[in-house]
């Protein structure tokens, strides 16, 4: 990391100052502005999508000053030059009359929906007055800063750090956190999936055919359609991935962990696992094997409704296809409070078949440093992480730092929902301010009523967003960010099996009075008196610093949009290692078996894969060894309520985008015909779902594609604030039915609960 201060930055700053073509200062949302044709920045610009967090490389072209035709950037091979419906609809967000293009301040009660336009200076003054007052009276830790990770969130958290608050949160505990922590506890780092080369894929409700992750979706489809891969899906609902699977097992919601453990049981008991691999790379196997003895397929059948003989057969098929087989560790890790052990059990199954760093298995990302070292030359430029010297160290502890079991969560996004207890009950201490950027907890956090209460209790709420989202509706100050099509950002690392970088570049001139969030937070920093922590002036100097002042390499990345360096490499795959040493004369000498197996190291205390972890046992007693724990998720007289992703929307973010709202505005509830018959419900009837924390009405979609004891709704709908005209009041609000719950060790929200269903 380059230590930079103002002097260094100004020295390196060769490029001009940041240009931000401000439109005339007209009030209101975009609707109030004259409809001007879009001003393209170039003929066809390579950039990065931000309609979801997959962040696919895109290529965008302005069509007749009206639309932007967005397709994929062909330079990124695994993305195939493709985009999904949301990516293609980026321009619909860009020119949505409902977009907020001027800072707004609340003039009525919080949530009343009365706003006044203010200037950026006034907005910054509001930030400084309120935040500095809270800092003075209660300490900077009384302000929480939350943002989804990625894009410009680094600048946001930089602000939080400069301000001195330790209470920074990403959305990790609301969605993917558990598998990251499970992976880090076992491997010391995150792992990636090589679905495209897999011959046998076991999938626990990871619906990449609706919750599209472009390279993984394409990879798995190729594996299925061209390479004869077999896909087995465990999911309570007949989703699109279940439809494309060779086998679909309607597992009981939240019980996937039992299936994963039973698979491990069969692999170990029937000696199907890769003993050599385990011996060489794994510690804690014996403790795990002892625990797993009791987890027979018959035991699992009773819990999960998946037939024992199927589990056994699948374990055998998995072993037969090993090592070019994978058990997908999923993404949204919120099915049960036992997510830590569920995801670890899944990783364990992969470890047992020895697919780490094998084609079709799991692998560690190869960033420039590792790759260059193995290659013996500088194949890829290293991406520097410009930092600032002398950042303040917060004195207070984080609000989620009181419970030691969340040790791994503190550095992996934090327990986001701990903001609620800190605000409502002053546990462990009172939070008074909440600054948010690119996050919508009213939709994405569980227990909407509680989130609402917390927002109302705050002394100051500031939200940076492009819409008045359901959360922004309760803000005191709204800071309008430019959309991703209007802004430049730092170079991002998209390394996979070999290093790759890509960069977001503006496609059209800025619309309205918006700014990219890096600029907003820098100027907030200035207003807060923290200028000394912001030595950079514009995005170009930052990019140059990232590239270690290598202007040529920077220009190359900006021209192509996406640059991949070198050839894909997996350390234990002989064919790939052979190609590698062919290409690089000074490459590391391979082992006797023609692989780089000896180079495979894990950043764990033992340096090996920790199937059972002493470190975890230390901060979370009883959790060191993977174990099955009963986790009741509903009462006997209730139905399970589960949610999922749909291909045309992203979480709680896109439901007001015109093109996407026109495709789907409502989320009718999936209910089984037998259950519906019992309740006297017909297809299309209005129904009410009631849980322990809320009640929602919707329409019934009677379908055999769901378990009899379960109902399902796509997530993200039913926003209740009037500012989102296309989304407001349409559909069922999932967060309003889910109770606030925090899973042990991983701190996750829970997305499975029990509901009563009745006809309205």
């Amino acid at each position, binding site marked *: 990391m380059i230590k930079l201060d103002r002097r260094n930055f100004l020295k390196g700053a060769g490029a001009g100052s940041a240009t931000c073509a401000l439109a005339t200062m007209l009030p209101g949302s975009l609707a109030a502005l004259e409809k001007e044709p879009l001003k393209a920045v170039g003929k066809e610009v390579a950039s990065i999508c931000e309609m979801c967090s997959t962040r696919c490389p895109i290529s965008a072209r302005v*069509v007749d000053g009206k639309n932007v035709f967005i397709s994929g950037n062909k330079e990124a091979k695994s993305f195939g030059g493709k985009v*999904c419906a949301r990516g*293609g609809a980026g321009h619909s967000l860009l020119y949505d009359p409902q977009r907020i293009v001027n800072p707004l301040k609340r003039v009525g009660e919080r949530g009343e929906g009365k706003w006044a336009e203010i200037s950026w200076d006034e907005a910054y003054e509001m930030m400084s007055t309120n935040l500095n007052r809270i800092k003075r009276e209660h300490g900077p830790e009384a302000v929480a800063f939350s943002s989804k990770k990625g894009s410009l969130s680094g600048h946001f958290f930089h602000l939080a750090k400069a301000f001195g608050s330790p209470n920074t949160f990403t959305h990790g505990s609301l969605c993917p956190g558990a598998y990251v922590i499970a992976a880090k506890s076992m491997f010391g780092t995150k792992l990636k999936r090589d679905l495209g080369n897999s011959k046998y894929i076991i999938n626990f409700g990871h619906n990449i055919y609706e919750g599209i992750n472009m390279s993984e979706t394409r990879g798995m489809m190729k594996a299925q359609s061209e390479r004869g891969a077999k896909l087995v899906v465990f999911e309570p609902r007949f989703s699109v991935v279940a439809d494309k699977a060779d086998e679909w097992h309607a597992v009981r919601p939240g019980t996937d962990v039992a299936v994963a453990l039973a698979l491990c049981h069969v692999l170990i008991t029937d000696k199907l696992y890769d003993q050599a691999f385990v011996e060489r790379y794994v510690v804690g196997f014996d403790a795990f094997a002892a625990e797993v003895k009791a987890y027979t397929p018959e035991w699992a059948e009773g819990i999960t409704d998946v037939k024992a003989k199927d589990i056994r057969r699948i374990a055998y098929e998995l072993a037969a296809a090993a090592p070019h087989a994978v058990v997908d560790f999923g993404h949204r890790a919120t099915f049960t409070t036992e997510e830590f052990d569920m995801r670890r059990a899944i990783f364990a199954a992969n470890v047992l078949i020895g697919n780490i760093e094998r084609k079709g298995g799991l692998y560690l990302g190869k960033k420039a440093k590792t790759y260059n070292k193995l290659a013996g030359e500088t194949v890829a430029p290293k991406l520097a992480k410009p930092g600032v010297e002398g950042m303040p160290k917060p004195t207070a502890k984080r609000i989620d730092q009181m419970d030691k079991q969340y040790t791994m969560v503190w550095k992996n996004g934090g327990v986001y929902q701990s903001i609620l207890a800190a605000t409502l009950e002053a546990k462990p201490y009172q939070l008074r301010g909440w600054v948010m950027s690119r996050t919508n907890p009213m939709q994405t956090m569980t227990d909407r009523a509680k989130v609402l209460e917390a927002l109302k209790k705050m002394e100051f709420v500031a939200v940076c967003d492009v819409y008045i989202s359901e959360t922004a509706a309760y803000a005191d100050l709204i800071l309008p960010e430019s959309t991703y099509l209007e802004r430049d950002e730092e170079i991002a690392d998209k390394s996979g099996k070999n290093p790759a970088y890509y960069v977001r570049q503006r496609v059209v001139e800025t619309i309205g009075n918006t700014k990219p969030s890096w600029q907003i937070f820098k100027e907030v920093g200035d207003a807060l008196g923290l200028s000394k922590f912001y030595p950079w002036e514009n995005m170009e100097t930052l990019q140059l610093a990232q590239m270690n002042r290598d202007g040529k390499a920077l220009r190359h990345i900006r021209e192509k949009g996406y640059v991949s360096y070198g050839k894909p490499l997996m350390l234990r795959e002989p064919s790939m290692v052979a190609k590698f040493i062919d290409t690089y004369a000074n490459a590391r000498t391979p082992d006797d078996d023609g692989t780089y197996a000896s180079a495979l190291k894990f950043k764990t205390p033992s340096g090996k894969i920790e199937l059972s972890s002493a470190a975890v046992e230390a901060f979370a007693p009883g959790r060191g060894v993977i174990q099955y724990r009963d986790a009741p998720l509903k009462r006997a007289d209730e139905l399970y309520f589960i949610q999922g992703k749909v*291909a045309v929307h992203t979480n709680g973010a896109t439901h007001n985008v015109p093109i996407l709202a026109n495709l789907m505005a409502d989320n009718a509830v999936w209910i089984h015909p037998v259950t519906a018959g019992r309740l006297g419900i017909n297809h299309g009837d209005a129904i009410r779902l009631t849980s322990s924390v809320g009640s929602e009405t919707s329409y019934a979609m009677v379908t*055999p*594609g769901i378990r009899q004891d379960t109902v399902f709704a796509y997530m993200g709908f039913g926003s209740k604030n009037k500012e989102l005209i296309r989304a407001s009041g349409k559909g069922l609000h999932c967060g309003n039915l889910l109770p606030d719950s925090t899973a042990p060790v991983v701190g996750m929200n829970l997305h499975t609960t029990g509901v009563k269903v009745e006809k309205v």
Partner: protein
Amino acid sequence: MNKRYVMVHDENKCIGCQACNVACRSENGTPEGVTRLQVRVEGPFGDAPNLHFKYHRVSCQQCEDAPCVKVCPTGAAYVGEDGIVTIKEDKCVGCMYCVAACPYKVRFVNPETKATDKCNFCKDTRLARGELPACVTVCPTDALTFGDANEPDSEVAKLLNTKPSYQDKTHLGTKPRVYRIPTKRGGIES
């Protein structure tokens, strides 16, 4: 030899994500409320656990014997030299005969031009620039293939010769040029 442009929609690869729907709208400036292209996810059919969805692409079939061309009184609906069924907007009076006559119901009245409109394989936008139609360009799972079936080396020709395919409403003799590869569950067994 004349071109015979065909589109092949592989229902096995199609995941119904509507990327094609959105790309078409963006490239061709289709106004809100109407569409040239939709993919309907129908079902699930069958008895649990052997269920399956059907991914049904709804767009102009570019019939070789097009009813819409036959019935248009002014000749506004015509078949171009490239074999693509197109609409000459300034000849259309909006009598709606073509909309009624289309057995696939894929023609609609464009609220902006007041003339009828439909998918034309991106003839005047992308094809004119030598690019593939918008839908084919963005499909995440490569479910769409487009090309000249008269070229024996083209991808579509190879695809149609190796995989079983079916077409919609062939009993009406329209000879559509959109081919569909059925899902391996349900439909034609391959």
